């Protein structure tokens, strides 16, 4: 404690106590100013319950921080630990797509402190002046060198750091193999769409955003996941419209229906595939052999974040390798941070769902910024949904 721990007047003590009770100063400030810090530190060695909790960030970061993120993407216990350490509660807002996040930020007044954009969106956020450059001095746990580069380089635009890596993953499909009647598990996007229109009719789900739904339809024909070519998109549209009557739902919240057996197959992100596979081994996670999406998510701070200090504190907390390792164990999305991986059990690092074989991985593509903002793809998906 750097504060002067000398005695203070009785009156001043009462004032400080009131401020502390009202919550306008943190416990640490109170203890420091009143000199009680020393006393409790001494007492603390005898009575463990009295030991001051390690304050995470110096100073008062407020009582809350608002995080916009994806479904099933965090370990709730970590948030509780963050609250313990800093006094700030983490409010989690869950989104279904990057398009939705972008729309909310473009409209303004989102109130978010931290959000989790995917690689292909960051240049757009920078271009639209919606996020702020990160001050790495406030992120002591961020070590650029420990991240695998292909999963961290999208965080910098023109040499300026705007976002730090969270997790990476793939977009494949999850399939309930118990409904296959002994047929082999499908391994390609072609089989995914064919099965949708035949044996799994009425049982398949696709995402409700354009990037992966159109991208994986393009893969049926072997086109690029990121294609914006008119003719190729027309082919994909025809496939989607043919498949639509056979779909169970168009939704990115696919875990509940997959778990209760209403849906048998769905487009799926790594961690969700892992989470379902752990609880129900008959649900397999498959990467289409033709390719598909490889992605990397980041933490970023939107411009005008109302609790800026808490935002930095939360990101830094989640970048802590020990915290991050707990996150990975909870949600099943791989981390690109070597320090985190060093803490993970060997079985997890060899898990084929998290770390697919090289030939499958090499076929994947990162989503492109142009794919996200392409008006024709957006309009195509809207036609598909309203058809």
């Amino acid at each position, binding site marked *: 404690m750097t504060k002067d721990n000398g005695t203070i007047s009785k009156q001043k003590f009462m004032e400080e106590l009131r401020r502390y009770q009202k919550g306008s100063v943190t416990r640490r400030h109170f203890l420091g100013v009143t000199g009680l810090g020393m006393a409790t530190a001494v007492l603390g060695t005898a009575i463990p319950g009295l030991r001051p909790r390690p304050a995470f960030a110096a100073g008062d970061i407020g009582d809350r921080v608002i995080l916009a993120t994806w479904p099933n993407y965090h370990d709730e216990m970590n948030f509780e630990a963050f609250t313990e350490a800093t006094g700030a509660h983490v409010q989690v807002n869950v989104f279904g*797509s990057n*398009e*939705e996040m*972008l*729309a*909310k930020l*473009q*409209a303004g007044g989102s109130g978010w402190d931290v959000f989790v954009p995917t690689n292909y969106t960051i240049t*757009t956020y920078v*271009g*639209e002046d919606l996020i702020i450059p990160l001050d790495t001095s406030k992120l002591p746990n961020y070590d650029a060198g420990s991240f695998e580069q292909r999963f961290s380089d999208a965080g910098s635009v023109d040499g300026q750091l705007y976002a730090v890596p969270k997790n990476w993953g793939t977009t494949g499909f999850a399939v309930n193999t118990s409904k296959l009647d002994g047929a082999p598990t499908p391994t390609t996007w072609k089989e995914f769409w064919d099965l949708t229109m035949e044996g799994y009719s*009425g049982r398949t789900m696709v995402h*409700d*955003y*354009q990037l992966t739904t159109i991208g994986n339809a393009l893969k049926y024909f072997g086109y690029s996941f990121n294609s914006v070519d008119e003719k190729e998109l027309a082919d994909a549209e025809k496939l989607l419209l043919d498949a*639509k009557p056979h*779909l*169970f*739902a*168009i*939704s990115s919240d696919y875990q509940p*229906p997959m778990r*209760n*057996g*209403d849906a048998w197959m769905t487009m799926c992100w790594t961690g969700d595939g892992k989470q379902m596979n752990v609880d129900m081994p008959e649900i397999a996670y498959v990467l289409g052999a033709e390719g598909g999406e490889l992605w990397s998510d980041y933490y970023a701070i939107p411009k005008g974040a109302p609790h800026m200090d808490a935002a930095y504190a939360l990101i830094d907390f989640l970048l802590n390798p020990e915290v991050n390792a707990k996150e990975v164990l909870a949600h099943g999305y791989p981390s690109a941070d070597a320090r985190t991986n060093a803490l993970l059990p060997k079985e997890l690092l060899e898990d084929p769902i998290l770390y697919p074989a090289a030939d499958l991985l090499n076929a994947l593509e990162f989503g492109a910024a142009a794919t996200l*903002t392409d*008006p024709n793809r*957006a*309009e195509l*998906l*809207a*036609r598909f*949904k*309203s*058809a």
Partner: protein
Amino acid sequence: MTERGRKALLLAPAGIWLLVMLALPLLVVFVFSFGERGAAGGYVPAFTLEQYANLPARWTAFKNTLILAPLGTIAALVIAYPLAYFLAVRCSPKWRTSLLILVIVPFWTSILIRSYAWIFILGGRGLPALLESIGIDDIRLINTPFAVLVGIVYGYLPLMVFPIFVSLDKLDKRLLEASADLGSTPWRTFRQVTLPLSVPGIATGCMLVFILLMGEFLIPAILGGGKVFFVGNALVDLFLQSRNWAYGSAVAMTLVVVMLVTVSIYMKFISRLGGQRQDVSLM
């Protein structure tokens, strides 16, 4: 203070509120509907009729809404009317208030949670499983227009029951007795006395439900699995996914115009039917 000044003072807050919070936003949407989509989405000022020319691309959404909204209204009416009749005419007054309250109580739980309860009921482990145990196989209910219809009727039933109840309650019971004394069959009494007198309630209930259904988006989103698309869903999609604000504004303006036209026609029709020149009151 003069009478005029007093009136102005009483009217000003409401008037200013409506101008700022209603007229201004509508004006902005109107202006936006002639603009263009920005490169990364959003809005770029322009003057073009392109967005309106593009409206046919959302024809299916309008068609779904214009089919399912009246259908849902009629379904709610068919289910609500006998209940309102029972409550107003047949039920003993002792129970009436409590039973009426029971109609509103479900309204106090979020429509979101109630709709999710229907996911469970209509999902594979709910009703279809029950049907299967009695030998009706392979029924799929969830994520169909039927599921949306059930959700609609469920969500809006109280709004239909109440106005009909009020109009039936006002009805002089002696009229019914007189009609029966004159040798009229119950059905004839109903058709010639009760039904015509409850027209205002029916009109109000239908209008309330219809108006709300035209802008509905939650129930189709939750119970339709993203496959049953209303104009409301198209709007959410345009503003929150494709971020085409200009086009979204044009669709919103069109929806407002379609509603104003349908509702005015409906009001004309009802007031003629009721044989009164008085406009139908919303409440």
